[in-house]
């Protein structure tokens, strides 16, 4: 694992040496900013059970659908297309180190993006100070949820990127996978009300997990689920990268 630091640094540089990093940040901040403005406006119309950050976290799927394919599409597809993978893999680094560093780079960028929304918390705190004290526990849990779900989707994105030389194909593939994992699974929950299928779907639904997290419930089960998912996705990705050796 001694090469991860060097590889990670290169990945982070790549995001901000190209326009991509800034474009993704801009997109994310516009979407989240508008969402935040709409939420605050809505809350101003009267009392409600919901808190601003809870609504905010329930919107996590919207940027995820676009941002995750965008930050992961390049990772391995571009290396393969330009041939730099040959240079990378003939240096004394292991395939897993490369895959893991790429995943980690995307996670760091994703974390940075969400960290910027911490500003909203400060704004809320400033303006709601006297009347309703801001409950920081559920907010922290919400951030944990966003990161745990996000890092899994990123691993799925890295896997998509390893399967093709074409960035657009990689992006569409990870968009489809993220769409299935978030939206379709949730929709199945509506389709099968009650019964065992509903139970399974509820256990898998990121919306339900996010709902719990943003209420301040730190359940270990979804965390284990997503971490296992990440391990599986990165394992398969490493296998795909290695596949040049047995094809």
């Amino acid at each position: 694992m001694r090469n991860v630091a060097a590889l990670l640094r290169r990945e982070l540089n790549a995001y901000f040496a190209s326009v991509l990093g800034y474009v993704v940040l801009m997109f994310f901040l516009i979407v989240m900013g508008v969402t935040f403005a709409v939420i605050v406006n809505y809350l101003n119309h009267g009392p409600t059970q919901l808190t601003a950050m809870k609504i905010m976290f329930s919107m996590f799927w919207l940027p995820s659908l676009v941002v995750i394919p965008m930050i992961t599409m390049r990772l391995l597809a571009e290396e393969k297309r330009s041939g730099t993978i040959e240079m990378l893999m003939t240096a004394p680094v292991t395939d897993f180190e490369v895959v893991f560093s790429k995943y980690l780079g995307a996670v760091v960028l994703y974390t940075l993006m969400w960290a910027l929304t911490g500003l909203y918390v400060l704004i809320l705190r400033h303006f709601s100070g006297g009347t309703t004290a801001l409950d920081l526990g559920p907010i922290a849990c919400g951030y944990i949820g966003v990161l745990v779900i996000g890092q899994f989707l990123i691993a799925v994105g890295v896997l998509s990127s390893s399967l093709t030389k074409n960035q657009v194909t990689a992006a569409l593939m990870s968009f489809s996978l993220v769409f299935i994992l978030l939206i379709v699974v949730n929709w199945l929950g509506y389709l099968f009300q009650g019964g065992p299928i509903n139970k399974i779907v509820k256990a898998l639904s990121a919306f339900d997990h996010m709902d719990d997290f943003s209420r301040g419930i730190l359940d270990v089960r979804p965390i284990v689920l997503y971490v296992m998912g990440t391990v599986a996705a990165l394992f398969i990705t490493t296998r795909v990268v290695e596949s040049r050796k047995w094809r």
Partner: protein
Amino acid sequence: MIKVENLTKRYAGVTALSGVSFEVNRGEIVGFLGPNGAGKSTTMRILTGFIPASSGRVEVAGCDVFEDSLEVRRHVGYMPENNPLYVDMRVREYLKFRAKLKWVPRTERNERIHDVVEMCGLTDVQHRVIGHLSKGYRQRVGLGDALLGEPDLLILDEPTIGLDPVQIRQVRQLIKDLGKRHTILLSSHILPEVEATCNRVIIIHHGRILASDTPDNLVKTLHRGGVIRIELRAPPNEVESKLGGVEGVESVTMDAGADGYVEVLVNPKAGADPRESLYSVIASNRWSLRELSRTRTTLEDIFVQITREEDEAEEERREARRSLLR
């Protein structure tokens, strides 16, 4: 330094290498020569551990390429074909990244990068973005990268491809200088390139090694068409019989020129050099001589000859198989 035994590589349905064996000793500059698709890049990729062999043994710096892949990679500086680089990075930044990957100790890193930058003539462009550099400079960045880890062995796949003549000369000179301290294996399909830089040539064609020797020896042993050309003023009927009788001469052809001189082409027997005897015959007959020269067989002739012979042999084998099937 390199020991390859019976190396075979099959891609889905295609045999890229079949039973290749060769050795490269420490300090040699060896040129891998072959037409496109002969198996040069495949061999190099196996040597650097990028892809494994289907069968056979490959040892680099005393380590098995498959078993000790990481150890081998530490000893090898590799520049792949077309020299892929991260075009979004700056030269120095890129070299620093590569130095870290190659485990150059932190304390030596800056010094090492400085040396490489100087050696490859990158001082002026070290702070520029690689994507904005000319092909020649990019090639030098690739070479610099290969040199970073102070490798025992340099493997360069088509190091001068796509360069202009001036850049080619510079890169060749650089390779020659590097050859004083490193073992080098380079590939090329350009013959003068190999002839100019290497002290041994391995000719590879259709995944098989056809010849392996010094350029001079290849020329000598395979020297068949070294024709001697003579221009002299003499009665044509005498020339053929007298020169044809000289020892070491295989055959003589003549062509009378318009200005009274006769152009004679002498085919010597394999390995023989009858130029001196020819001169003494001419001198003793008091013919006036205007030219006596031998056309040098180049590596190019040999290469064309060998690969053609191999193709013909291949065709014969195929024909034999076909007739057997019938």
